[in-house]
């Protein structure tokens, strides 16, 4: 029996009407839909505002990430050399001038320098014939185990304002993040189009949730690899869905593998993506009729090469340079992994501790709420700038509703026996959670409890957007515009509240 393959998103053209000419149809396909163009306009405006509003180096580890990018741009060398200073004199003098180190964790008592005369003094030192050197950094810092891809991308911004001050270069790098944020949003749009069909309202809502979640915007427009990581994971979710739904057609497998390789070259968290991607490729091949599988395999093979070569290259380079190619955590020799203890830790992360469990909590409250929700939704600066208190339980209620909608989708998929996409999405989320919890557990038993942060969950934000899109798609036709309006306007209102929180913390 001939097996059929789902041909991707449904076409909506009516067969009885005359079709548009090939040329005009192609033009229509190339032209972005107005709803997408408007959404990207929103995301760019919000992104530029975030990029310029947040004071210099007031996002997690931004000093270290800037130092990494500067080392690459100035010396074309990875940082981490023991005989060099962590940061260049150029970065240190700018940091001292604005008081970035003092502001980190203490914005209330020590906001960024507001003194115009201090800024003038900094500029005069910077324009001196002998300004602080930029090339004497490159020593060990917190970011140096990271692979270099994000920093190479950010260096485009660095080089665009090469003649400017350290602040000019920092903000130019942040503005590159706005493009990355737009790419993330586009990825969300495509993901919803593939998973839910070309239905514009669910697509708008899915992409908006992904691109306008305050923490996504904040991290993407900071100098930090997390922004690129979120974009690449969102694109990987889209391409994975394409590979599965279209049966590993055309260049999809190569695209998926290239995006995965780029994600691994951005941050080690992305090793969690490799398993789900291999599953997507396998499902894609198996969904072809038996006679076409060899052809499909021929399309997957170059993809696997595209995935493997950069990874092996990076691991080899890292090994040659005496660096860790894969970040190592904990001290397994001193504290061996214990499955029961690990499960107890996971239980206490998500649920109240049972009386007989040894305490393994990392926050005073429920860690899932404190870390995943509060930090993942919106805690800015060095986690020292919060949203208004009422916003977190409200967000928790909305996210719970979206989670239930996701569960409803699972049940429907099980009923329809359409489990392939679901398996890919579920495995992606589980792999991310497993990697994060395993790392956190190993560090916890080694004596360090502060590893996990809410932003580490953001690579999976595409799935949250998909849940939101799913809810809108499931509504009756007349209710959809209202639901779409509420979702978009609520996201924008939260953006304004978040930016107001940042403005008040640092500048009022």
């Amino acid at each position, binding site marked *: 029996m001939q097996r059929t393959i789902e041909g991707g998103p449904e076409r*909506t*053209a009516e067969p009885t009407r*005359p*079709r*548009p000419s090939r040329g*005009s*149809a192609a033009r*229509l396909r190339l032209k972005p*839909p*107005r*709803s*997408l163009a*408007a*959404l990207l306009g*929103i995301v760019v*405006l919000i992104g*530029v*505002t975030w990029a*310029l*509003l947040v*004071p*210099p180096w007031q996002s997690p580890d931004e000093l270290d990430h800037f130092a990494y990018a500067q080392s690459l741009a100035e010396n074309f060398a990875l940082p981490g050399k023991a005989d060099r200073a962590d940061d260049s004199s150029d970065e240190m003098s700018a940091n001292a001038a604005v*008081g970035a180190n*003092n*502001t980190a*964790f203490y914005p*209330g*008592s*020590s*906001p*960024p*320098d*507001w*003194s115009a005369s201090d800024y003038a003094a*900094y500029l005069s030192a910077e324009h001196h014939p002998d300004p602080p050197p930029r090339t004497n950094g490159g020593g060990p810092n917190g970011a140096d185990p990271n692979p270099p891809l994000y920093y190479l991308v950010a260096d485009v911004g660095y080089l665009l304002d090469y003649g*400017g001050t350290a*602040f000019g270069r920092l*903000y130019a790098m942040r503005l590159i993040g706005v493009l990355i944020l737009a790419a993330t949003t586009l990825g969300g749009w495509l993901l919803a189009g593939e998973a839910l069909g070309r*239905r*514009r*309202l669910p697509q*708008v809502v899915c992409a*908006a949730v992904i691109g306008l979640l305050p923490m996504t915007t904040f991290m993407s427009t900071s100098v930090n690899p997390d922004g690129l990581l979120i974009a690449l994971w969102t694109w990987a979710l889209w391409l994975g869905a394409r590979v599965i739904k279209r049966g590993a057609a055309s260049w999809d497998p190569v695209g998926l593998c290239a995006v995965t390789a780029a994600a691994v070259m951005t941050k080690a968290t992305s090793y969690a993506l490799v398993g789900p991607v291999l599953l997507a490729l396998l499902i894609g091949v198996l969904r072809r009729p038996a006679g076409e599988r060899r052809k499909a395999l021929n399309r997957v093979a170059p993809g696997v090469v595209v995935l493997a070569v950069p990874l092996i290259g990076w691991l080899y380079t890292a090994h040659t340079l005496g660096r860790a190619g894969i970040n190592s955590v904990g001290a397994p020799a001193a504290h061996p992994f214990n499955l029961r203890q690990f499960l107890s830790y996971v239980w206490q992360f998500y649920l109240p501790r049972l009386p007989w469990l040894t305490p393994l909590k990392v926050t005073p409250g429920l860690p899932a709420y404190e870390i995943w929700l509060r930090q993942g939704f919106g805690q800015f600066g060095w986690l020292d700038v919060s949203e208004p208190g009422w916003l977190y339980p409200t967000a928790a209620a909305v996210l719970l509703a979206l989670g239930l909608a996701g569960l409803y989708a699972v049940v429907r998929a099980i009923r329809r026996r359409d489990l392939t996409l679901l398996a890919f999405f579920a495995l992606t989320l589980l792999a991310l959670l497993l990697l994060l919890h395993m790392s956190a557990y190993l560090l916890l038993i080694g004596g360090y409890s502060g590893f996990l942060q809410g932003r580490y969950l953001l690579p999976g934000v595409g799935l949250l957007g998909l849940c939101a899109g799913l809810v809108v798609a499931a509504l009756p036709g007349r209710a*959809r*515009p209202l639901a*779409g*309006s509420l979702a*978009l*306007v*609520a996201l*924008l*209102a939260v*953006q304004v*509240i978040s930016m*107001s929180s940042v*403005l*008040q913390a*640092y*500048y*009022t």
Partner: protein
Amino acid sequence: MSRLSLRVRRAWLVPALVAFLAVLLLVIAGAQAGPRRTFTSDAPNVSQLAVMHPQARVCEGGVTSDGPSDAVGVWGGSVGPVAGLKVEVQDARTGRTLARGGLDVGPPLGEHVADLHGQIPGGRPVRVCLVEVFGAYGLWGSGIVHPGFPLTGMLTDPRAPVPGAFDFSLVLLNAHRSLLGSLSTAFSRAALFRPSWVGSWTFWLLAAGVLATFALAVVAVTAAASDEEDPPLRRASRR
């Protein structure tokens, strides 16, 4: 005119109404008064400098705020159930008391704000003094940040820091300014330590842009709704 096209034409009404209501609520929230900083000592609250016992008195000054202030914020917490502090603000040149206030503080560490009776004028150097009235208060600050206004005074704690080497964390506040009313100040502060092409005007422009995103949201939802009802390929085929 077909029913479909009428429905599509009216599709912007609901999103526009939702966006208008949201903007209205945000403007109302932004117009609420709250404390805004007019001066900060820039001393981060990184460590406890000393425990102040009754009669202990510490001062910092002369400090100059960039606008009238009617509240003082310090960082710390009581050592014990509760501590009482008196706050005095004096003219740094004449020593005349300009404003006074008081604080009852519990153990949680954090910022404590004393509302003042009297106003501190902007642009005039003042000295801010804290006097322990009852209980014990752990005062927080850091190593000296600005040599111009070091911590001075009498601390009864034998482990008290050397006067002149530390700053306690201090902010002067105007408690009755709204966020919207403070935007001009905030944007001029934010324009420093930025790329050369950024000024206050950039933030005003961006604020207008953020407002415009609500209109763009209406466009996005309306266009998406009309595409769902009448997809572009179908539209093109009708032409």
